[in-house]
């Protein structure tokens, strides 16, 4: 017996794809009005997503009534293109909506040159649409396509400023991306060859631990690791961020990378679940520890604000990797991982936006010379600090809750008797200190005594949006239960 409003879910999710694509197309077709279209579209899409999530939650608590699969154009699997909406994708859609809305508002102030507006908004809307589709699409090949859409849009945005550094960074990013996509595609092909289907659910039903699956898993995972900038394949991240416009960096670190990680997670929860071995978990965990340490060290070294933030992304994704072995012991832990990713995305986006404001005001983002502006812009520094607190995983922030749950899972494995678990616990606990160190590095000079200089005027959007988003990230702690419950509405997942 399906509740009445559950019937609206398929239409709702299909409509979401349509809407976001429609907005993108419209903006592309009519660049003169791109920013207005973009703003309206952003509001519309956000509203839509929120409505959808309301419907979705209302359809719960039984995952199978809530989660929905839609065959586009009536072509059922294995032939047709499947959209699927479940707790996981719903959560990430909401996250995307929130971050993207903030970014759009911020961009209103950030990108104001007429020409640039025309170029910026369409690309940005395509990126957003791509992300929505990525989270909704339910079959492997679609995933590849959406991945490509996202990466191409992202690359274009990275190259946006058109400087040598930017373009070079973009090219590196692009090549890496294509390499990743290709190896992902290779994996998809292998799976298709083995089972003749692409739909994830069907695949999940059919896969067992065979050599082809293993090969496919390796190829897809490696490709996605490359795209998700997971240590040690993170090297494109800093250059790409270094010269990208602030909103783009925010989305890149907040959403795009998260999207790729989302794929890894979904694949290993579903299709590749039978393949997992303890050794695999440990390897990924070790990579995570490496990421934590290396990323943090680089963040402590880097001399430019945005590089610091970029490397902190590398470090924070280490947590997600460390969570893998925990998931092997306690499968329920995946929800914690997602929650962590969500919180991180919010915080990281706001940090990048704040950094953008400072960079704009000062005209550069070299930490050593940023003091005067930092001192004169307490609001932005406050946003930086607030989001930083979330990154450190200190109360009262979403980061704290996520950290708590991670630590709980880690200690759980230790109590369950796994020795290596101690390492994970240490990594999870110690990571916070390193985070604290580089966050402190970012804000400390605001407290030095010295010259104050507000620098270039910034639009109120750039002044307030980072603070707002940071507040959201800080208060995400209150949404912990809600998020975890939403995630629980994922059929098949433990």
């Amino acid at each position: 017996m399906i509740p009445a409003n559950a019937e609206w879910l398929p239409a709702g999710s299909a409509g979401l794809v349509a809407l976001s694509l429609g907005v993108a197309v419209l903006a592309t077709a009519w660049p003169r009005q791109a920013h207005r279209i973009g703003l309206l579209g952003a509001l519309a899409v956000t509203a839509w997503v929120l409505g959808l999530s309301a419907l979705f939650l209302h359809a719960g608590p039984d995952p199978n009534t809530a989660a929905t699969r839609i065959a586009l154009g009536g072509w059922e699997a294995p032939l047709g293109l499947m959209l699927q909406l479940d707790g996981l994708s719903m959560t990430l859609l909401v996250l995307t909506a929130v971050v993207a809305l903030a970014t759009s508002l911020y961009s209103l102030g950030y990108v104001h040159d007429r020409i640039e507006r025309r170029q910026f908004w369409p690309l940005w809307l395509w990126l957003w649409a791509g992300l929505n589709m990525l989270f909704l699409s339910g079959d492997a090949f679609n995933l590849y396509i959406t991945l490509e859409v996202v990466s191409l849009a992202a690359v274009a945005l990275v190259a946006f400023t058109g400087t040598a550094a930017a373009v070079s960074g973009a090219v590196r990013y692009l090549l890496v991306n294509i390499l990743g996509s290709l190896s992902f595609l290779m994996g998809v092909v292998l799976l298709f060859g083995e089972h003749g289907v692409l739909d994830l659910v069907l695949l999940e039903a059919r896969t067992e631990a065979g050599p082809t699956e293993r090969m496919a898993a390796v190829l897809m995972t490696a490709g996605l690791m490359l795209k998700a900038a997971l240590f040690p394949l993170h090297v494109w991240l800093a250059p790409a961020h270094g010269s990208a416009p602030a909103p783009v960096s925010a989305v890149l670190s907040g959403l795009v990378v998260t999207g790729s990680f989302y794929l890894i997670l979904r694949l290993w929860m579903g299709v590749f679940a039978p393949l997992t071995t303890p050794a695999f978990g440990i390897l990924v965990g070790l990579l995570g520890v490496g990421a934590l340490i290396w990323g943090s060290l680089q963040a402590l070294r880097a001399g430019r604000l945005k590089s610091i933030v970029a490397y902190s992304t590398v470090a924070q994704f280490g947590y997600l990797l460390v969570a893998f072995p925990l998931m092997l012991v306690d499968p329920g832990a995946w929800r914690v991982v997602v929650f962590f990713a969500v919180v991180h995305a919010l915080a990281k986006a706001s940090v990048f936006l704040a950094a953008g404001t400072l960079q704009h005001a000062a005209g550069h983002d070299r930490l050593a010379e940023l003091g005067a502006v930092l001192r004169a812009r307490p609001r932005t520094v406050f946003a930086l600090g607030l989001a930083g607190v979330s990154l450190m995983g200190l109360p009262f922030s979403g980061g704290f809750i996520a950290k708590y749950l991670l630590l709980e899972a880690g200690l759980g494995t230790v109590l369950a008797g796994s020795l290596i678990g101690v390492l994970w616990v240490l990594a999870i606990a110690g990571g916070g200190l390193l985070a604290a160190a580089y966050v402190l590095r970012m804000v400390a000079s605001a407290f030095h005594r010295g010259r104050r200089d507000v620098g270039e005027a910034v639009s109120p959007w750039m002044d307030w949006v980072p603070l707002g988003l940071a507040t959201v990230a800080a208060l995400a702690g209150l949404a912990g239960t809600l998020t975890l419950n939403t995630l629980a509405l994922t059929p098949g997942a433990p």
Partner: protein
Amino acid sequence: MNGLAETVAHTLAPGLLYPTGGAILFALGLYGLIRRHHLVLRILALNIMGSGVFMVLLGVAARGEGAPDPVAQALTLTGIVVAVSATAFALALVVHLTRLTGHAVMLPGPPDDDAPVEDISREAHHADGGPAESSAGEDRSA
């Protein structure tokens, strides 16, 4: 002798030949991507990898007897389209980069810390300067 012939024949059967070839192409492409520094060559290498993938896909399509699987071929076509667009985009970027730097080679990353950064939002902040000014004024007083 006989066994050998069988092996060869079996190897030449499309079901296995294409995948193997594809894999080899993929590996070659990867190697090229790593070894070559000129960006155009790198893009070529990526294309080679791509064709490797598609070759495998076709092999999959041709698996078994009877007519090849239409789905797989559809996928191949889509894939090629995507690859082409990506390549085009990449080439465009490379051209741009060559214009800027004079040669089609990537700058060494990570960005060194004292490189000047152009900030697109710097020029013409008067665009919505009204509120910006006021907020700035308030900041200055602070």
